[in-house]
């Protein structure tokens, strides 16, 4: 493997809450332009893993590097100035709608590029508007988050992350809290990003979407990567029994 292509390294990550071990010695690497989908049963630590990657959680073992620089390490000795800088390389969209309620859609998107990256206001607003146009929300630029539907909020959250020009995007079940008819509009935006060769780490329960978007699937259970593979292989003939069982929970037998 060409190591110069590696963007994100999860290196022997161990995460505990108290004496409960959530992730046990997890390692994997994300190459530039790769889309990785992480699946696994509820409570297996998928959200926790993404939160460890951009250092929203302290870790108890191992190290996480982005572009070769340590963003989170056991012992937590990353300088806060470095952390703020490295987090800009990692965009994150959460499951809960996490827009800033006191700012308009446009201000939600531009505040960090303006204040953190000190970029030019006209330039960043133009970029924000182009993105909003692209995700079908240009007419909502002056609206407040409370005036948007869940699907619209998540599209804004994605645009907000994109306008920081991150090198890798983390998505944590961004459609899990949405009404079914809004799921599609958000997944379409993510598919669009995948086509542009963006590097993404996606946690999702949408199996059809996972299969369509992923270059690689990681199946996590009991704090570890149990199986990993290409989506075509993984979804048609999973190698491990646990993955088979998990995938089976998404199928229904006819009862009539």
């Amino acid at each position: 493997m060409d190591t110069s292509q590696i963007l994100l390294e999860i290196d022997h990550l161990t995460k505990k809450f108290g004496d409960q071990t959530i992730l046990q010695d997890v390692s994997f690497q994300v190459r530039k332009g790769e889309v990785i989908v992480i699946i696994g049963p509820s409570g297996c630590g998928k959200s926790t893993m993404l939160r460890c990657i951009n250092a929203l959680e302290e870790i108890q073992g191992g190290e996480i590097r982005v572009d070769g620089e340590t963003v989170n390490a056991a012992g937590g000795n990353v300088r806060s100035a470095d952390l703020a800088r490295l987090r800009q390389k990692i965009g994150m969209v959460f499951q809960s709608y996490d827009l800033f309620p006191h700012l308009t859609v446009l201000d939600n998107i531009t505040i960090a590029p303006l204040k953190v990256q000190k970029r030019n206001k006209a330039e960043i607003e133009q970029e924000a508007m182009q993105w909003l146009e692209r995700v079908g929300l240009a007419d909502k630029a002056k609206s407040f988050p409370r005036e948007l539907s869940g699907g619209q909020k998540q599209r804004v959250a994605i645009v907000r992350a994109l306008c920081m020009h991150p090198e890798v995007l983390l998505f944590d079940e961004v459609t899990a809290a949405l009404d079914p008819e809004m799921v599609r509009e958000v997944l379409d935006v993510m598919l669009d990003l995948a086509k542009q060769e963006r590097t993404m780490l996606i946690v999702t329960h949408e199996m059809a979407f996972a299969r369509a978007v992923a270059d690689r699937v990681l199946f996590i259970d009991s704090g570890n990567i149990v199986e990993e593979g290409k989506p075509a292989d993984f979804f048609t003939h999973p190698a491990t029994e646990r993955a088979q069982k998990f995938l089976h929970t998404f199928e229904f037998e006819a009862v009539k």
Partner: protein
Amino acid sequence: MPDLGLEVLFKGKNAVRLLGGLWIALRISLISVLISIPLGILLGALMTWKNPVMRAILRVYLEFIRIMPQLVLLFLVYFGTTRAFGWDLSGEVASVIVFSLWGTAEMSDLVRGALQSIPVHQYESAAALGMNRVQTYLYIIIPQTIRRLIPLSINLITRMIKTTSLILMIGVVEVLKVAQQIIEANRMASPNAAFGIYLTVFILYFLACWPISLLAKYLEKRWK
């Protein structure tokens, strides 16, 4: 039309005296508010700290002030401390002390509530966008806290203004005391003056507090 005794209002300097009384009440409230807001913000922020000793002390202070009727506090400070410590407090200064103690306690609780009502994911979203601590507070947390706080603290101000009617009990000649004096002085000539004068006092309080309440409602609606 019944005799409301309103003519007393226009006798001599009575109207001006009432307004003067109102001004004293408003001035005491205003000074107390100006003292309470910064102290309340400070104590409120301290209340969200993890330190259990600090939290217990502030909690006791808040509960003590809340349980005590304001009149008892006024008596305690005006009569109690002047005897006990032998110092000389004017009624107005004693009032400002009591209202500041009260306002600070109430304000700190409002600030604590507003700060704690900001969900954790607001801090996390800001962090995920690369904001440092200062930026997070400056652009995300404080603006949201202030929006929640302003309508509440305006209501506190009107409560303070209304409660100043108690300070006549420690000899401060505020609007209600002036009203009593006017009524007393005209007892023979206009026995019905009580109605007209108290009605005027009612209207004065209303005029002082109503615009403030309106402002609170307006801000609440705008920032919802």
